[in-house]
């Protein structure tokens, strides 16, 4: 088993009106009393109300798949056997937002889970967490409350692909925490084989806000197509490194000092490198249509004048190592891609670039989960965004610039 070392809690910044991060200070988590002062009593709602509200505000899942929450909610049956799963595993190493939310505003997450459970007529809630601080905070917060629900908090460490929702559910069910070969949606069969409403921790926090404020209150800030706020992890040459809460619709240039013409990674290690953030705006729909989906909500900007190539090679090796090893194209293809990239960076020439390109084509679209495709997207977009720079490496080897060190990777303890 791989134990990921846990870095200290990220700094927090709020752009505009605080909602998810309301009341959050350096001192510690928002306790129940303060939480109720800020957000009011537990906002239980009927199923029909919640369904309409989720549709009206077009709430999108915050876990990376960007699935419309109303559609997921409406697909669920009601009943006491149904389960709620809160995914706090945050396997993406560059992302900090989920653990910050759980460590600082646990009651908002718990409120959201209880609200959904109540509306579906069930008491079964499971929360899966990897980060120790987040886990301990949630456990402590749970002790402050008296919910009419059976809430189980599972502390598990399963790596990047293990945070994928089907893998999480398999782990909760006692099976191997890996994605299965056939794609079965949690709403059909999830925890204990029952229909399960499974979503990211931040999604549940938004549901709590929505239930408390109503549609109009929720939609007062942010863009019209996707109202509200969203959490983002900001890394590298940015105004406020750490986790930020931002109203949707904000232009990405708001995060940077100089005008947005440096290369930026959007979405994390299954994300997309873009060579300019001009015209890019923070809504999930707009980013997706611009070819750089928001995914796990990470925005990383290397410092000007540094060389990112070695870092990208390191990340691609890490991605290869995170392969569960179930599927051939991933298990053999990702290390080949990492090797190819290293070869290119070390003066491999046009031939090395061609081999890399061929392997990228062969690996895409195959495998049982999104890991190979996401990893290919990361590498391919880097080749596009850093085209000149990478060709320079291919022809002459090292470029002489200071190596960049902004992309975080977990330290592995075997």
């Amino acid at each position, binding site marked *: 088993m791989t134990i990921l070392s846990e870095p200290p809690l990220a700094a927090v910044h709020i752009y505009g009106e605080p909602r998810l991060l309301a009341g959050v200070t350096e001192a510690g988590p928002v306790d129940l009393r303060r939480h109720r002062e800020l957000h009011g009593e537990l906002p239980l709602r009927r199923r029909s109300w919640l369904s309409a509200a989720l549709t009206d505000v077009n709430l999108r899942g915050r876990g990376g798949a960007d699935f419309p929450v109303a559609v997921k909610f409406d697909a669920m049956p009601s009943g006491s056997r149904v389960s709620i799963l809160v995914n706090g595993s945050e396997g993406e190493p560059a992302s900090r937002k989920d653990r910050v939310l759980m460590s600082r505003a646990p009651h908002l997450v718990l409120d959201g889970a209880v609200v959904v459970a109540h509306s579906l007529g069930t008491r079964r809630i499971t929360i899966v967490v990897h980060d120790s601080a987040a886990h301990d905070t949630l456990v402590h917060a749970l002790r402050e409350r008296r919910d009419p629900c059976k809430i189980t908090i599972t502390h598990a460490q399963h790596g990047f692909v293990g945070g994928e929702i089907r893998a999480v559910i398999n782990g909760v069910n006692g099976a191997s925490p*890996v994605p299965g070969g056939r794609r079965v949606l949690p709403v059909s069969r999830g925890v204990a084989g029952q229909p399960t409403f499974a979503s990211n921790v931040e999604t549940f926090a938004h549901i709590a806000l929505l239930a408390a404020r109503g549609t109009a209150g929720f939609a007062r800030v942010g863009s019209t197509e996707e109202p509200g706020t969203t959490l983002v992890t900001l890394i590298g040459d940015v105004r406020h490194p750490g986790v930020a809460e931002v109203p949707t619709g904000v232009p990405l240039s708001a995060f940077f000092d100089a005008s947005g013409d440096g290369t930026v990674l959007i979405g994390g290690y299954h994300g997309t490198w873009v060579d300019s953030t001009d015209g890019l705006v923070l809504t999930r729909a707009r980013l997706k249509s611009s070819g750089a989906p928001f995914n796990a909500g990470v925005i990383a900007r290397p410092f000007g004048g540094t060389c990112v190539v070695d870092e990208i090679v390191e990340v691609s090796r890490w991605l290869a190592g995170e392969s569960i090893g179930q*599927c*051939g*194209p991933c298990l053999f293809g990702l290390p080949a891609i990492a090797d190819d990239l290293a070869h290119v960076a070390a003066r491999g020439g046009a031939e090395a670039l061609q081999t890399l390109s061929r392997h990228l084509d*062969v690996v895409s679209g*195959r495998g*049982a989960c999104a890991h190979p495709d996401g990893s290919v997207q990361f590498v391919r977009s880097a080749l596009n965004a850093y085209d000149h720079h990478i060709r320079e490496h291919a022809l002459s080897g090292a470029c002489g610039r200071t190596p960049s060190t902004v992309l975080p990777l977990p330290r592995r303890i075997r």
Partner: protein
Amino acid sequence: MSKLEIDWTRCDAHGLCARLLPEKITLDEWGFPLIEGRGLDESIIRDARRAALACPALALRVAR
């Protein structure tokens, strides 16, 4: 139209599928199948079913 589906968690690069259905399946450099195109013509459905049955890992499926 019917199509070929692969259960990647079972596939172990035995290669029988490509041998029995070369019009639709080729192998990558590690021996894993690459499927050509989306659907299956009526004319090769029988061969496709035969290939699916021959897979030692039961990783190939002819789906509706």
